[in-house]
């Protein structure tokens, strides 16, 4: 199977509670959303905790300060066939009081059937594995990173899920548990040929792999500019708004003006006053450019793991934001851009955007 799928991603604060009119003390939004994905048996979903973010209200959340990290940003991504995700969207929007909901087109690869990755300049391959899953005697996430590195991918990072579903089953991380099947998300960027080869090898090595492929543009790698993000029109033929996403993969070890690049980027975007928001996720393992895959050690003075900064905005603002990103990634980092066909930003009763997907060929 190699079906057209949708990826539903939500970004919000972890302490946010569900919007309901009956329960006296409504539960946490993240919990309720995963419950929904569980009952609908969503093929794969994963909840990630971010280290910094700001949104439309321009309120900074960051783990640099204890008080500002009390309500960390979370992002929950869910992938399944179009019909299933379309049925979920309205419920997800209804339960959210503040946050961003996006829909993107992806392909879910469930076996080694012919994979059509097209002739795009780059492909984003996302692999979901369990925390303690093993491939060939190695922890699965390390085995996958080694494989991606061997195939010459531009970068690959492993993000620790704290909750999620895999093949329709709910796996939630607990303190006193080995958390064997709690999903990890491995995001990587490669050429169509590299992705094709990696997928063939992965589907042979892992018993039940969960993989998705998405079309992206590789804008920058290690300081080298390949292409600016596509300059998309504001709306498609049917007047549905188009959005774009930048993903800036950097390392905790690379800095700009004395700050790690991702910290500097969040500050610059916040200061710009007009950026709609950004979320930073820190990985636990991965590689960027030519460095071998690595993680952090228990005893070390400084961090060196990869981080990714996700920026979603209108085409006009992505073009402006890219100039800031370009300046800050003068020597390091991988920058990709992609189209986001549907975005809904929710601020209390104000719903801006559309969850119907725009269609635009570029």
């Amino acid at each position, binding site marked *: 199977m190699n079906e057209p799928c949708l990826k539903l991603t939500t970004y919000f604060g972890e302490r946010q509670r569900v919007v309901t009119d009956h329960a006296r003390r409504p539960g946490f939004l993240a919990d309720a959303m995963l419950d929904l994905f569980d009952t609908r048996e969503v093929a794969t979903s994963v909840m990630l905790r971010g280290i910094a973010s700001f949104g439309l209200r321009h309120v900074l959340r960051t783990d640099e300060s204890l008080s500002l990290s009390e309500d960390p940003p979370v992002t929950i991504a869910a992938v399944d066939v179009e019909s299933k995700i379309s049925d979920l969207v309205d419920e997800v929007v209804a339960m959210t009081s503040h946050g961003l909901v996006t829909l993107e087109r992806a392909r879910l690869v469930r076996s080694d059937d012919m994979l059509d990755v097209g002739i795009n300049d780059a492909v984003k391959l996302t692999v979901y594995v369990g925390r303690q899953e093993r491939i060939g005697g190695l922890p699965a996430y390390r085995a996958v990173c080694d494989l991606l590195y061997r195939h010459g991918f531009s970068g690959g990072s492993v993000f620790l899920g704290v909750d999620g579903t895999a093949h329709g089953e709910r796996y939630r991380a607990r303190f006193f548990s080995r958390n064997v099947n709690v999903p990890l998300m491995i995001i990587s960027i490669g050429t169509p040929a590299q992705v094709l080869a990696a997928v063939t090898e992965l589907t042979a090595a892992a018993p039940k792999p969960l993989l998705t492929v998405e079309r992206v543009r590789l804008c920058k790698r290690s300081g080298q500019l390949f292409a600016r993000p596509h300059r998309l029109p504001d709306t498609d033929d049917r007047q549905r708004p188009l959005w774009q996403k930048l993903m800036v993969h950097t390392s905790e070890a690379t800095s700009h003006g004395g700050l*790690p690049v991702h910290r500097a980027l969040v500050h610059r975007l916040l200061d710009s006053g007009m950026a709609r928001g950004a979320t930073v996720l820190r990985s636990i393992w991965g590689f960027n450019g030519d460095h071998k895959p690595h993680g952090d050690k228990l005893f070390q003075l400084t961090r060196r793991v990869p981080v990714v900064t996700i920026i979603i905005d209108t085409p006009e603002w992505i073009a402006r934001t890219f100039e800031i990103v370009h300046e800050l990634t003068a020597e390091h980092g991988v920058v990709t851009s992609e189209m986001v066909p549907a975005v809904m930003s929710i601020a209390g009763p104000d719903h801006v955007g559309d969850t119907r997907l725009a269609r635009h060929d570029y």
Partner: protein
Amino acid sequence: MLLWVGVLIAGGFGAVLRFLVDGAVARRAARSFPFGTLAVNISGAALLGLLGGLALNRHAALLADTAFVGSYTTFSTWMLETQRLSEERQLRSAVANLVASIVLGIAAALLGQWIAGQL
């Protein structure tokens, strides 16, 4: 018994006040440097200097100094945030955080004491 209930309440107020002040300052500054914790610790040192200089009675001192200011200021957050700065290679900020807290903290405590002496 009543005194310990008082410690509980004064300590609780101190902790909530710290959370509010720290959050407000840090959010406004929106910088990597932990200005929120610095503001809390410096204002706490000044307040403690002032209260110490007032020579309150035993019980009042326990409530105001140990319970209220004790839970308002925070050594652990100061240390944690310094460590977080250094693990992100912001060594200058980390050292500045240590030095500024000590220098400004002692100055604030002296100032508090001096104000109490003038009252």
